[in-house]
């Protein structure tokens, strides 16, 4: 039972009623029924604006965008959380960026390095401490290939000169030391952190091998940009590209290394999965190195096959022929998956509220399983993300930008989806409300979901959540007994 445009509009109005007038006016612009006819999203939805004070927002900060998303997964570098200990410690290893290597010896992703700021560092400055820290790292972890300094809020507030320390230590140890000015207070969400991180990569590492042609190149070199290898996503994407005859030179940044990043300017095509977090560097490489970039989508067999063909179209006929072979090879596999799970999931309705690319990218995967996405929204998307979303969503489905805890709850109560895909902060609220929930930021400790292999896991996970018998058992026993008692009374009367 799809809602009509009027119903969705009145639902939005009803939900907004509890806010004071000013807040109502502000939030109104972020909520809208979808109109697939529109070319530009700015006609119907406002995004990337400061969250309202006083509401529960689900957004992160610039440090989360830089350390957590872009820099963190680069495995052979050490990323120092420069500032108080909490920011790094409480986000440590939470994003499940898988990698190969020996942690603590030549890879460092799940470790937390911090300068642990104390009062005296705030008062007297932390540059000396940072210099000592870098020296200690060099002694204890000599196999690191570089260091990035991820600033937390106080660094910007007290005016430390981390750039100077970086240059000095970089010269001293002969390794890359990258200062990243990603203090949490910058911008309205983690989105600016992605941008700052991209700019830091551009300014401090990308040009390192510009004059060095010793790396043997082929015509089929590509780089995977914006795949963070959550639960192994980049690996299940990479094998498809390699089977097709392409050579994947770099993974940005899941299971990636600094050497791969420095070699990326040598590739022929950049493949961008997460547009939101890495379009900046792709645009830069297009301008400076004339490397074209294209977006692709490896969620669900339909979109995967579509993307594989689009990628192959950029290369010669031998690649295109192999691409068809690859698609044909996996077809029986995913058809079996659809045959098994589609009858169990057909017609179920899903609401999503996630981060940078998934609110639009996973829609195809749900549709392959016969499910319908009835509402979607971005924590930190911009206009260009919504531009790309309008076409993917059905008419008069709900779109919500930077949705507040209250609004999301009310929408779910009224729209009554069969499944919600969102983050850890929303998970337990909805599970307690008895609504099946998947944590779609890190695949609820499962994955990978990319590619044909990932789709099988995706389908299994959705089935195992949706058709779990536990959802019918959530009512408190004393409530159940009164109902039963009432019924008994009614029956006897």
């Amino acid at each position, binding site marked *: 039972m799809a809602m009509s445009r009027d119903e969705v509009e009145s639902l939005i109005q009803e939900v907004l009623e509890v806010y004071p007038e000013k807040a109502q006016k502000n939030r109104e612009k972020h909520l809208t029924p979808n109109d697939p006819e529109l070319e530009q999203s700015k006609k119907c939805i406002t995004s990337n604006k400061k969250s309202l004070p006083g509401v529960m927002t689900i957004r992160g900060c610039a440090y989360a965008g830089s350390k957590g998303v872009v820099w963190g997964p680069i495995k052979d570098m050490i990323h120092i959380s420069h500032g108080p200990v909490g920011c790094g410690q409480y986000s440590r290893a939470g994003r499940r960026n898988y990698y190969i290597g020996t942690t603590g010896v030549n890879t460092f992703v799940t470790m937390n390095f911090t300068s642990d700021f104390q009062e005296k560092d705030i008062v007297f400055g932390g540059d000396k401490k940072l210099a000592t820290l870098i020296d200690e790292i060099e002694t204890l972890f000599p196999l690191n290939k570089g260091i990035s300094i991820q600033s937390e809020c106080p660094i910007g507030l007290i005016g430390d000169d981390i750039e100077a320390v970086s240059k000095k230590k970089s010269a001293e140890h002969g390794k890359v030391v990258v200062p990243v000015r990603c203090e949490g207070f910058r911008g309205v969400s983690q989105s600016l952190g992605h941008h700052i991180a991209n700019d830091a990569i551009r300014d401090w590492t990308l040009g390192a091998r510009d004059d060095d042609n010793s790396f043997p190149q082929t015509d089929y070199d590509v780089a995977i940009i914006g795949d963070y290898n959550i639960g192994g996503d980049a690996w299940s994407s990479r094998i498809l590209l390699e089977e097709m005859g392409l050579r994947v030179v770099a993974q940005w940044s899941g299971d990636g290394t600094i050497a791969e990043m420095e070699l990326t300017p040598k590739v022929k095509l950049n493949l961008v999965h997460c547009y939101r977090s890495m379009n*900046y560097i792709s645009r830069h490489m*297009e301008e400076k190195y004339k490397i074209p970039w294209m977006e692709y989508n490896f969620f669900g067999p339909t979109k995967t096959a579509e993307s594989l063909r689009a990628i192959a179209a950029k290369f010669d006929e031998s690649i295109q022929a192999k691409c068809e072979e690859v698609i044909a090879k996996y077809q029986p596999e995913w058809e079996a998956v659809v045959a098994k799970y589609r009858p169990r999931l057909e017609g179920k309705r899903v609401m999503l509220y996630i981060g940078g690319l998934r609110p639009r990218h996973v829609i195809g995967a749900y549709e392959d399983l016969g499910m319908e996405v009835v509402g979607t929204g971005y924590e930190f998307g911009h206009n260009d993300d919504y531009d790309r979303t309008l076409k993917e969503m059905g008419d008069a489905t709900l779109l919500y930008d930077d949705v507040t805890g209250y609004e999301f709850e009310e929408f779910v109560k009224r729209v009554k989806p069969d499944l919600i895909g969102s983050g850890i902060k929303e998970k337990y609220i909805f599970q307690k409300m008895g609504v099946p929930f998947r944590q779609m930021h890190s695949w609820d400790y499962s994955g990978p979901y990319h590619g044909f292999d990932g789709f099988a896991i995706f389908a299994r996970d959705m089935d195992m959540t949706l058709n779990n018998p536990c959802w019918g058992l959530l009512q408190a026993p004393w409530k159940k007994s009164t109902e039963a008692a009432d019924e008994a009374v009614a029956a006897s009367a």
Partner: protein
Amino acid sequence: MPSVMLRENDKGELTLYVPKKDQEDVIASIEFDTEDAWGGELTLGDGSSFVIDKMPGKPDLPITVRAKRGAEA
């Protein structure tokens, strides 16, 4: 004076991208687009415009240039 990036999208349309605002729009019309002159006032799909310096011939795209905001249409 924002700096903007001019590039061609997949369909071959000229687009203007404002990095500070993450806004990308198709350019509807361009003032000079001949052999020996390129640039001037760029009008976007929604009517707003940007003015860039006139260049001798079409540059190698994409390119980042300084632009002035034109009069609001």
